[in-house]
């Protein structure tokens, strides 16, 4: 099996598995006052400190959640509600149209049900949001509740200059949220230095468990809770702490961040070879997103593990199926709940036509990727693309 879908989820690290297994057999609610509760709380709080340190945050800024989708929902809706409550004219959300659906659909829900307005930011062909574009969209900022721009795009891997964007937002008094689900462990993510008010991250993209994530939220950021109850997590996210998952999340994050530079170099080299050799087999292959060697503020302008390619004349879902039948696992854009492959909203947002969007595949490499994985793709990609081109999906 050639697993090249690490951006969807990546295998758990052995040290995470060990740390979680140790916790799973223990009793103790971290909110209880007795010895077992204290022991559980101690482990959870150690994990909070460890996670905070890995991401340049203070422990009190870490709110544990059920994952990236929950963190995005909490940030977008919670900050919108709190900001509008403080000042009724703050109804506008300024957002990139290339965001993950957890952000997009939260925004659209607020527009539909809660009288919000949205300004969609123009996106560069690379997928990047330029600070001056954000500045223009914010205006004087007085009617803006929140801006949200992802740190790195989950489909095409483009990295944004989050510190520069946050500076622009703060200049007009607007808080900024960033979805850093794909960025953590792949590029340098320092919450404090970035200046953002809220940051989404999750465990299973970097070797941790599914269903465990965090929202990093500055102490001075107002956020109305989605979940009410026992008042855990600064009263912003009630619910009994899942200590084993939290330990797994913290170990995974600390490990991935600690090994980031070396891992990024290795994965980047594999990715570069993959793109180079696929192009040699299929010369009209198009690379979507920023160039492979793109540099942004001294770091990579594209996630080192991301290769997002279009194969003109071939349908992405036919390519995926043919590769799957040959033991190679990758992804097209996003699939709707019924499993229908849709043209990627990200590619459409960066100005690609429907044809290019439909003919795309994402290969995403990670900590278990090897030279053999790249070889496997290169060996079959030529005939697979040729076959897919002969099989247009019911189009005339």
């Amino acid at each position, binding site marked *: 099996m050639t697993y090249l879908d690490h951006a969807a989820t990546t295998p758990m690290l052995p040290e995470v598995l060990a740390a979680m297994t140790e916790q799973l057999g223990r009793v103790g609610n971290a909110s209880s006052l007795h010895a077992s509760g204290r022991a559980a709380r101690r482990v959870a709080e150690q994990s909070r400190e460890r996670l905070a340190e890995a991401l340049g945050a203070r422990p009190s800024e870490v709110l544990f959640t059920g994952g990236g989708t929950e963190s995005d929902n909490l940030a977008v809706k919670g900050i919108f509600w709190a900001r509008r409550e403080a000042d009724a004219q703050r109804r506008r959300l300024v957002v990139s149209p290339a965001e993950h659906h957890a952000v997009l659909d939260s925004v659209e829900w607020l527009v539909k049900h809660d009288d919000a307005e949205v300004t969609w930011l123009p996106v560069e062909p690379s997928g990047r949001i330029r600070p001056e574009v954000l500045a223009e969209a914010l205006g004087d900022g007085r009617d803006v509740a929140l801006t949200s721009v992802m740190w790195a795009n989950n489909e095409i891997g483009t990295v944004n200059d989050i510190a520069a964007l946050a500076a622009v937002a703060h200049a007009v008094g607007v808080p900024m949220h960033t979805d850093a689900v794909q960025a953590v462990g792949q590029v340098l993510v320092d919450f404090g230095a970035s200046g953002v008010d809220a940051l989404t991250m999750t465990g299973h993209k970097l070797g941790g468990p599914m269903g465990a994530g965090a929202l990093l939220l500055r102490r001075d950021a107002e956020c109305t809770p989605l979940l009410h109850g026992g008042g855990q997590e600064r009263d912003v996210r009630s619910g009994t702490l899942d200590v084993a998952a939290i330990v797994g999340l913290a170990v995974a994050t600390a490990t991935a961040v600690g090994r980031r530079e070396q891992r990024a170099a290795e994965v980047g080299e594999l990715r570069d070879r993959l793109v180079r050799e696929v192009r040699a087999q299929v010369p009209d292959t198009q690379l979507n997103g920023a160039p492979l060697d793109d540099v942004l503020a001294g770091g990579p302008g594209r996630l080192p593990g991301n290769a997002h390619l279009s194969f003109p004349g071939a349908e992405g*879902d*036919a390519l*995926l*199926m*043919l590769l*799957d*039948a040959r033991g190679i696992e990758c992804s097209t854009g996003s*699939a*709707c*709940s*019924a*499993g*229908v*492959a*849709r043209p990627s909203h990200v590619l459409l947002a960066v100005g690609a036509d429907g044809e290019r969007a439909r003919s795309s595949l994402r290969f995403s490499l990670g900590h278990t990727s090897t030279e053999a994985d790249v070889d496997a793709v290169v060996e079959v990609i030529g005939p697979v693309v040729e*076959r*897919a081109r*002969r*099989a*247009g*999906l*019911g*189009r005339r």
Partner: protein
Amino acid sequence: MRVLAAMSGGVDSAVAAALAVDAGHDVTGVHLALSQNRQTLRSGSRGCCSVEDSHDARRVADELGIPFYVWDLAERFTEDVVDDFVAEYAAGRTPNPCLRCNEKIKFSAVLDRALSLGFDAVVTGHHARLSDGELRRSVDAAKDQSYVLGVLTPGQLAAAWFPLGGMTKERVREIAAERGFAVATKPDSHDICFIPDGDTRGFLARRLGSRPGPVVDAATGETVGEHDGTYGFTIGQRRGLGVSAGDSAPRYVLGIEPVSRTVTIGTAEQAAVDEVLTGVPTWTGAAPVLPARFEVQLRAHGRPVPCEVLVVDGGLRIELADSQRGVAPGQSAVLYEPDAARGDRVVGQAAVAVAR
């Protein structure tokens, strides 16, 4: 061989896929997304192609351990089946959308794509027998679907596989239950899948709007009523005409004239049809030598009628042994060669142009 199993989410296609796996083939499941509004959840027996159906199909594929994908054919289905359905009604004809879907979608768009992707055959849960290139009625007469497959050509049949034709629906459900498929007790889908509430007249009214016209009595030539749209009527219809003629004898719809929007009604005698003229026929095998005697079925679940078939102007003239009511232009006349032992063989079909 490499087999593509078209899986609707119903019990028939689930068992067909399972039988293909049992037979040792390399099977891949595909659910066809045909509806542009997929959020509707099934209620009762109606409709298909919902998110829930897609999920049901995926569950079975996962249990069988076969790959499963959803193919989005909504655009093509809308053009070739739904829009065609509306246009046919607007033109005063009565189409069969299931037959059109088999012709244009399942055994055209899907089959072509499957073959180009390297599959050898497409397996479906249709109730019809197919062996040695001969298409025959199912052993389960009540569930027989050979009528809506009558439009297939030898080339299409060569790559088709219907493993359920030799068993009853009851047996299909038993097999599903033995395997623990949750769809074993799922209700049959009927009606038209893109009209889940079953209100065809309402669907057409929304698409075509109000198009009022006269209802005319054929005997007197007098206008005896008004209607909101010819699409609300089918030839042979007796109920709901909303008119009263001079005498108490029942009246039937004899004709629909879309340009003047005239619906003509008449007596049972006038509604009787003894002869059908058709468009260009298609054959499931080698074209038969005509004239010849066959049986003809004029609608899904209709009763087969002995007939003599002749060639006229590139189409067929079908002379019926017993007169029929309710034969509408647009319907398919499917010809069968009776065979009690092996199942009646489907010879071919042609669309009704004139019934008189």
